[in-house]
């Protein structure tokens, strides 16, 4: 039998894959900078709620998967993701007691930094074209209450600890 804190891992990964599928949905041109970073939202949720079963390595793997599915340079999303996951885990005790809307406010700068990291790394590698997708941070923070509620339902239903 798996140890208690490992039992929820399949559930966590299924939620991450669903978030990945959401990210890949084809969108009209105007909506693309507004589309929230769903995988990051899920990673932040699991880092806050179950920091002992969802470690940094898994956040990093989720970022790597995102790199692969967006046909980007391997390591780019992974690096941004691991920084955000670390911040969430480091301060999970401080953030967790907040009401959901305050958590969304905390998330806003985190998501903005995440998008900025992606933009900055693209610039560093000489890829022309990208801009800082800060609108995605706004919509991401706005989507936090929804994803929080959904993922909490999942966590309680499947008893992920």
């Amino acid at each position, binding site marked *: 039998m798996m140890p208690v804190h490992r039992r929820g891992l399949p559930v966590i990964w299924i939620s991450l894959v669903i978030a990945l599928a959401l990210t890949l949905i084809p969108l009209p041109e105007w909506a693309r900078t507004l589309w929230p970073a769903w995988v990051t939202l899920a990673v932040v949720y699991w880092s806050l709620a179950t920091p002992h079963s969802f470690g940094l390595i898994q956040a990093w793997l989720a970022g790597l998967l995102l790199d692969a599915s967006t046909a980007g340079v391997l390591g*780019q999303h992974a*690096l941004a993701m*691991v*920084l955000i996951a670390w911040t969430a885990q480091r301060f999970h005790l401080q953030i967790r007691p907040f009401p959901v809307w305050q958590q969304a406010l905390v998330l806003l700068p985190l998501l903005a930094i995440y998008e900025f990291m992606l933009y900055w790394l693209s610039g560093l590698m000489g890829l022309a074209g990208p801009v800082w997708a800060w609108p995605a941070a706004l919509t991401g923070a706005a989507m936090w209450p929804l994803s929080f509620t959904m993922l909490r339902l999942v966590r309680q239903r499947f008893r992920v600890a």
Partner: protein
Amino acid sequence: MYGYKQTDTRNPFTGRHRMLVLRLALLVLLSCALMILDHRHQQLDRLHDALSVLVTPVRWAVDAPTRVVLWSRESLSARHHLIERNRELRTQNLRIHGELQRLDALQAENERLRELLQSARQVDQQVMISEILAVDMNPYRHQVILNRGSLDDVYAGQALIDAHGVLGQVTHAGPLQSTALLITDPNHSIPVEVNRNGLRTIAQGTGSTIRLDLPYLPSSADVRPGDLLVSSALAGRFPRGYPVGIVTEVEIIPGERFARISARPAARIDRSREVLMVTRRPETTHHDVDDTDMAPADSPPGETAPGEVQP
């Protein structure tokens, strides 16, 4: 190290946090190493292949709704529509066959003339139909995922065309799916020639699906709006003679050495789902790829124009 211990989390400076910082540092370093290896040296093909197989089901799932819509549109369309469409296609087929006969004669004549001139003959080309998956990726790059991979003999550098012109090239061929960069991506350049007078230049993507830029033509160049740009085989990557775009605007600025010329892509960049992958004759194929593999995968070797050096 994973076990939940009350004492650990109360004091922020005990082992767990130090472990966390250590792990963060390691993962950051690992990410940087990956990025450098992948971007500068292109040495992670195996890892790319493995990961691309891993995300294949996700891409299929995302593409599924589009597939269902197309399928239902096909299977639910009325009989008289189908008959009408069929008739339309038959007349079109007849017309194309007629044109093809003339083309065969022309090609034979062309080959005879080339033999007379003792110049190299054009290589045979094979085409394979593949589909673009309805999957959205990085919003700032014009990339697409194709439903064929190296198991179907797709290779990096393979040219992609649709019914109207050149679409792009394969940048990475995974086992089941491959990634292609479109000619409108801001990092993409394609060697072209003006069909009217054979003037050679480079067309760069702009990030807009309806515009290409031709930044390396002097103000005195003989280019007019309406000129057809066709691919030149200069880089050895694109087959020669496929339409790339039509010049839309020629702006000559007094005092500037280069003209500002833009073109509209001939291919339907954001509307094609079915595309053709052009394969060179097998024996030349592998040789070609080996030769051009030194260049970064996302910039064709034609991209040696001034000021276009990637850091």
